């Protein structure tokens, strides 16, 4: 079968570390052009992977490729993806698919009008563990879900190629938008829609490094999500049901603990498929790419279509609109005089 021609738009850390190496090894696609506003960055990667062309404007790929992976700074995801979709190019867009729900709607509409495939890079849905949790809950093994507790934080060390991830204008937000989108996507996918939410973060004119959410879900469960770029937290989900408790560590190949109520019986292990666990995060991204290509070939919806990608964008939008400051007493000791920056004081 002929390979699909693919453009990678945006050559930052995720393209360099994941998308390009994964696509380069794929039998299904051929990367024919790399796009980056800063051409030397694109050229360096093109040389390394033998990609024949580079461009500094994504519009140059229109008419020249079948599909594109959009891995630009967050604020460009929606406009660039929309433009590509409307030009008939299939797009796998990095998360978040957009910074506003209105943009999500436009993208979904473009898919309807053009028939192009839009896949959203909510890659954690491709973790074997995430799919395992989904099935455990759907099959009712835990009974009705009562509560959940997610703490995810590592002292930030993502090898960012530029400061775009840390600027409000380009990232749209901090840890909440960046990591939170994954966490909230899983939450909504596993446990269904929410009823109400309280949201706290520590942004004071820039992007938040820490945040907390208190959620009440329509299924009746309630719980907390805490995210951090400045602290190493527990890094796991705990989901409590009437019949048992499930704990899943964060990460692409985590340990899963399943404990049945009143029996004290615990199952701990890794989730495998066909006898194998994922060895590398790239294995997961390969499944995401394979699904994207198969959706294009089979004229079907991808595993994570725009409609699904929109759910977490909407929740984030709601949270940010009702944001309250996170309490950090050491930020504002009583012994010091403050009060000049409106909105920053808890």
């Amino acid at each position: 079968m002929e390979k699909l021609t693919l453009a990678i738009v945006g050559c930052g850390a995720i393209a360099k570390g994941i998308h390009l190496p994964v696509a380069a090894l794929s039998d299904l696609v051929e990367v024919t052009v790399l796009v980056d506003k800063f051409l030397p960055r694109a050229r360096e990667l093109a040389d390394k992977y033998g990609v024949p062309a580079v461009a500094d404007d994504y519009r140059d790929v229109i008419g020249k490729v079948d599909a594109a992976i959009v891995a630009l700074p967050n604020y460009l995801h929606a406009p660039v993806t929309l433009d590509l979709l409307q030009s008939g190019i299939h797009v796998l867009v990095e998360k978040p698919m957009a910074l506003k729900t209105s943009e999500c709607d436009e993208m979904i509409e473009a898919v309807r009008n053009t028939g192009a495939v839009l896949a959203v890079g909510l890659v954690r849905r491709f973790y074997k563990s995430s799919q395992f949790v989904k099935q455990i809950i759907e099959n009712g093994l835990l009974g009705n879900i009562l509560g959940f507790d997610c703490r995810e934080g590592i002292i930030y060390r993502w090898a960012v190629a530029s400061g775009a991830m840390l600027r409000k204008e380009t990232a749209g937000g901090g840890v909440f938008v960046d990591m939170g989108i994954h966490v909230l996507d899983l939450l909504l996918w596993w446990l269904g829609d929410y009823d109400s939410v309280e949201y706290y973060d520590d942004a004071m004119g820039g992007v938040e490094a820490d945040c907390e959410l208190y959620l009440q879900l329509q299924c009746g469960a309630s719980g907390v999500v805490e995210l951090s770029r400045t602290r190493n937290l527990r890094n796991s989900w705990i989901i409590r049901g009437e019949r048992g408790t499930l704990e899943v560590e964060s990460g692409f190949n985590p340990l899963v603990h399943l404990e049945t109520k009143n029996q004290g019986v615990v199952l701990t292990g890794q989730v495998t498929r066909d006898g194998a666990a994922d060895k590398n995060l790239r294995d997961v991204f390969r499944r995401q790419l394979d699904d994207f290509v198969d959706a294009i070939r089979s004229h079907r919806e991808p595993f994570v279509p725009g409609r699904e990608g929109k759910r977490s964008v909407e929740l984030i939008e709601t949270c940010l609109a009702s944001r309250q400051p996170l309490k950090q007493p050491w930020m504002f000791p009583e012994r010091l005089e403050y009060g000049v920056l409106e909105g920053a004081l808890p």
Partner: protein
Amino acid sequence: MKSAQFDLSGKRVLVTGGTGFIGGRLVERLILEHKADVRVLVRNFARAPRIARFSIEMVHGDVTKPGDVERAVAGCEIVFHCAYGNQGSREMRRLVNVEGTENVLAAALQAGVKRVVHLSTLMVYGATSDGDLDETAPRRYSGNSYADTKLDAEKVAFDYVERHSLPVAVLQPTVVYGPFAPVWAVGVLHRLKTERMILVNGGNGLCNAVYIDDAVSAILLAAVREEAVGEAFLICGEQPITWRDFYSRYARMLGAAEMVSMSAAELLEAYSAQEQRKTRGILRETLSILREEPLVRQRILRTSEAALLTKVARSLLPKQIRQSLKRRLKSNDRASQPRTAPEGEKPIRPMRPSVVQFYAPKTRVCIDKAKRILGYQPTFDFESGMRLTEQWARWANLLGE
């Protein structure tokens, strides 16, 4: 102290080292208290999430690159130079601490900056003795590469004051603790969790601790007080405490932590006995001298014979061996290898003599000069500073297993 009693409002300022502990808190207060227009020279964006919470300008660059520094300094009225190197080889530390400082000062001079606040350290005084210590004490090299390169950086700073009339003020903070403190909070908690800490002389030596916000208040004052130019100021809390109090307070946060009391003499003896057990050939002994005496090493490495030898070694030895030799030559960390401990018991780490000398003396750091000239007045006693530190440490998930 009323920290908002002077005005940096709207002033364009540059902070180097703004992604670090002291520089990071300085950035926060420049914005929260003074609404200053803050620019930060950022070497590594991965370390910037704390300051990215604010609306600041982040300029990508490195203090060791003059072009980067010039871009960052351009248009700034005040420069706070908090960047320092405490990692990598001695050469790297020297590059960051000494040449980095020179780059910042040269750029400040060129740009007509109105004030530079240079962050130095108590450690420029070398091993201190019992009794009062003020800024008239002689500066001394101690063999510790951080301290020695900071001393050289301070010399560069005063040289710019004298030769170029650059308005530089120098601050010498002591043991700075508080939220995010890498050594005196995160590091202490980590050690108390993983080893049995040695208290030198039962922890009777004096710890001249200062809470981060007091240190930052002094930095802010040094930026605006005319009389600060050309002067160095020791910055410390009001009253020293003992090292026993200092470590016990952290141990209390953890619920329990084991500490072992040993006399300085005992520790020095144990160290030299350990050293003597290693019978050495001449090559090994030479390497060891080179390792322990940076000045000797530098002088030898500068000879033409050494240059030739290095060149030959570089062309003949496989990369792996070259790197391992380099590591061995540079590492002075042998003493920090834990002694083997019986199972279930936490290890005791032997102490190098320079560390024993740091903990043993009952030195009292005087802050009269900072009070008189800067109007500095510490507002956090140890207990109130530690209360905030504990709240933070609990939130930061540092007090659990």
